[in-house]
């Protein structure tokens, strides 16, 4: 049971971690080049360099900043405002690096069967491909207005259902509604300028699968982001010259548009770490080239971070990894319980069988031979126990979603009616035992009647309790793959601790004086 528990818990957590990592890579690509809020100029040229690299599948520029989003709800003048992470992106190239296009949630059903599977209130039933196109281009096609895509949990209007789908809450189906985004531009000197705001129609919503992303992030077109944050192309004035009659300084050139991040996707088979090194080298070479070109009106930032997706999402992944390790350690304490149980049981056996141990010694059994008897039993118990534990864990994990679904549904009538029948049979056994006047049987049948009665009543009253409620937890499917490394490690640990638990009573048995054992045992 101990082994089964450890393997089940750690496997599910490992599965969850893998899902998290898999989703994480789909969100940010393989390698991320990040600069400060002042941004990197000439990103279009650097992107050309990147796309020319043999190991790069795609690259996309973006601006990552924070903002405030004024929501259309509630009705009336007082509107809710929420803080958001703003990603100003080029949606088309973003789709080549991340799963952005696939992550758009609102899309019409792919076929009649999919439509049939949806709830009658599901808005997707009435959607057209237009909403997908709007999301993919971040443009409201109908009006030609730049649009915004919200993370699925940015709005309170989306209520997650037990099957993982969403239904609008309070009537707030966000696509089509306008929201106001406010951002604060920061100059290259780090000075904060006047906040700027823009109204965007919501064109779609995005479900990446990671709650931390989906409840914060919004996507707007890159050009809109650059303009709002004053990172767009702008005239360069000669402030040393005399201004004209209107007080304007002469224009001597243009400063290039900037971005704060570049996401890079590796070709299949190329590791993120290898690509990270290549991108870092490419950036250094590119920055040197730009900075040595005196015709340029801007220089490349001195410091940029080039990180793999795993390093970038460390804050997200590390806590889950730590949780898993903590669970592993905590549950591994069960080993001590296991060793303690074997120790106490074997100790009792040694005390009980002292005379038999004396007999064995009298017929020539050595001390080591006596010790080996107990160690061998400890080993056999460990091997059988661990083997059964791994088997039980495998059965539970492979069927965890079915089990979860069964727990989350009403108990079938046949089960609870059958339980009541068994309760009745136990009660009859109880009456018979009372008639026969056997105390032990009375107690056992009484316990049986009570336990079966409780089970039957519990099943009859059970109307489904989802442990991992998808409306609360962020995954619809519980990971159902056994973590075999953990399974074998745990099983070996179980055997080792069983033998350790047996070793102490085994030593005591070996130390028994055969004369004492035969005389007083």
């Amino acid at each position, binding site marked *: 049971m101990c082994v089964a528990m450890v393997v089940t818990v750690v496997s599910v957590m490992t599965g969850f971690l893998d899902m998290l990592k898999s989703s994480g890579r789909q969100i940010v690509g393989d390698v991320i080049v990040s600069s400060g809020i002042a941004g990197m100029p000439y990103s279009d040229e650097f992107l050309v360099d990147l796309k020319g690299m043999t190991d790069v599948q795609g690259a996309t520029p973006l601006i990552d900043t924070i903002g405030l989003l004024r929501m259309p709800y509630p009705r009336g003048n007082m509107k809710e405002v929420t803080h958001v992470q703003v990603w100003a992106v080029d949606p088309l190239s973003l789709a080549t690096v991340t799963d952005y296009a696939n992550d758009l949630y609102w899309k019409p059903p792919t076929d009649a069967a999919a439509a049939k599977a949806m709830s009658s209130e599901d808005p997707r039933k009435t959607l057209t491909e237009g909403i997908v196109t709007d999301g993919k281009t971040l443009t409201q096609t109908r009006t030609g207005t730049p649009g915004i895509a919200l993370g699925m949990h940015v709005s309170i209007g989306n209520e997650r259902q037990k099957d993982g789908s969403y239904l609008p809450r309070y009537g707030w189906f966000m696509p089509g509604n306008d929201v106001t985004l406010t951002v604060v531009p920061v100059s290259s000197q780090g000075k904060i300028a006047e906040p700027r705001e823009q109204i965007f129609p919501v064109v779609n919503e995005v479900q990446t699968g990671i709650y931390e992303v989906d409840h914060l992030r919004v996507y707007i077109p890159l050009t809109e982001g650059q303009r709002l944050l004053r990172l767009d192309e702008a005239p360069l004035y000669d402030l040393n010259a005399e201004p004209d009659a209107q007080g304007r300084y002469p224009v001597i050139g243009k400063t290039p548009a900037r971005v704060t991040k570049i996401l890079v996707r590796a070709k299949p088979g190329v590791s993120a770490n290898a690509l990270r090194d290549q991108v870092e080298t490419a950036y250094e070479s590119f920055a040197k080239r730009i900075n040595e070109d005196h015709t340029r009106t801007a220089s490349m930032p001195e410091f940029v971070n080039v990180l793999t997706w795993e390093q970038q999402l460390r804050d997200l992944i590390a806590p889950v990894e730590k949780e898993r390790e903590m669970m592993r350690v905590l549950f591994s304490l069960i080993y001590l319980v296991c060793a303690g149980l074997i120790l106490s049981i074997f100790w009792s056996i040694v005390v009980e069988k002292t005379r038999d141990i004396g007999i064995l010694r*009298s*017929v*020539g059994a050595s001390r080591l031979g006596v010790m080996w008897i107990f160690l061998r039993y400890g080993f056999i118990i460990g091997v059988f126990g661990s083997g059964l534990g791994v088997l039980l864990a495998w059965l539970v994990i492979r069927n965890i979603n079915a089990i979860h679904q069964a727990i989350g549904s009403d108990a079938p009538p046949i089960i609870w009616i059958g339980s009541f029948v068994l309760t009745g049979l136990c009660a009859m056994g109880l009456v018979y035992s009372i008639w026969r006047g056997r105390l032990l049987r009375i107690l056992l049948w009484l316990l049986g009647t009570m336990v079966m009665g409780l089970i039957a009543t519990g099943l009859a009253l059970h109307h489904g309790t989802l442990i991992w409620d998808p409306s609360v937890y962020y995954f619809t499917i519980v990971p159902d793959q056994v973590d075999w490394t953990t399974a074998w490690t745990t099983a070996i640990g179980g055997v080792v601790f069983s033998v350790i638990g047996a070793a102490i009573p085994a030593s005591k048995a070996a130390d028994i004086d055969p*004369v004492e054992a035969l005389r007083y045992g």
Partner: protein
Amino acid sequence: MAERQPTHTHSDPHPLIEARGVRKTYSFGAVPVEVLTGADLTVQSGEWVAVLGSSGSGKSTLMHLLGGLDRPDKDGGEIRFDGQPISVSHGKRLDGYRNKDIGFVFQFYHLLPELSVFENAMLPGMVGNWFTNRSKARESASRLLDSFGLSHRLAHRPGQLSGGERQRVAIARALVNSPRVLLADEPTGNLDTKTGAGILDLLAERHAAGLTLIMVTHDPAVAARATRVVKLANGRVVQPS
């Protein structure tokens, strides 16, 4: 004990077990109790020696010392088997001595209750090298139990047998490895007179076949079946008057 070279052939009478000045003291808390104060005993091969003594005289202690289950006090004399000292032996050598050279029969049988009659009888054969001894022990136990009239009881547990039957199983167990000496500690002490006589007949048969027997008893009538009787008094072996 295969490395020891016997100083005599089995057929010639010779000192098989010798105890010289054996002392044994037990400590019960802070109070030492000297049970044997210098016991001397020589048993020739093929002899049946009865050690007669009252309760608490140290008969069982002497038996345990002769059988290698216990050791004399430090500088408390010497015990030899076939000329080789066993009182200073340790570990594997002493285990081998108990397993191969001697057999124990106890007053209270001391059979393992979870094992069948047959398994109890072949127990010494299963100790040591399991794989090489098992088939030999099986054959030997089967033959002995058959000769003791227990062939119909092989699968029974000791709890399903009478006292006499249990003692016969115990004797079969003691003989399964064909030891040279049988040490019997009050073998009839827990049996009625008729059953006890049956057991003594059985021991006599074995003695007649050449087995050396050392038997401790408090009953002079039982001791009378032996070829030689010695008395144990005040912790020493004395010859009968």
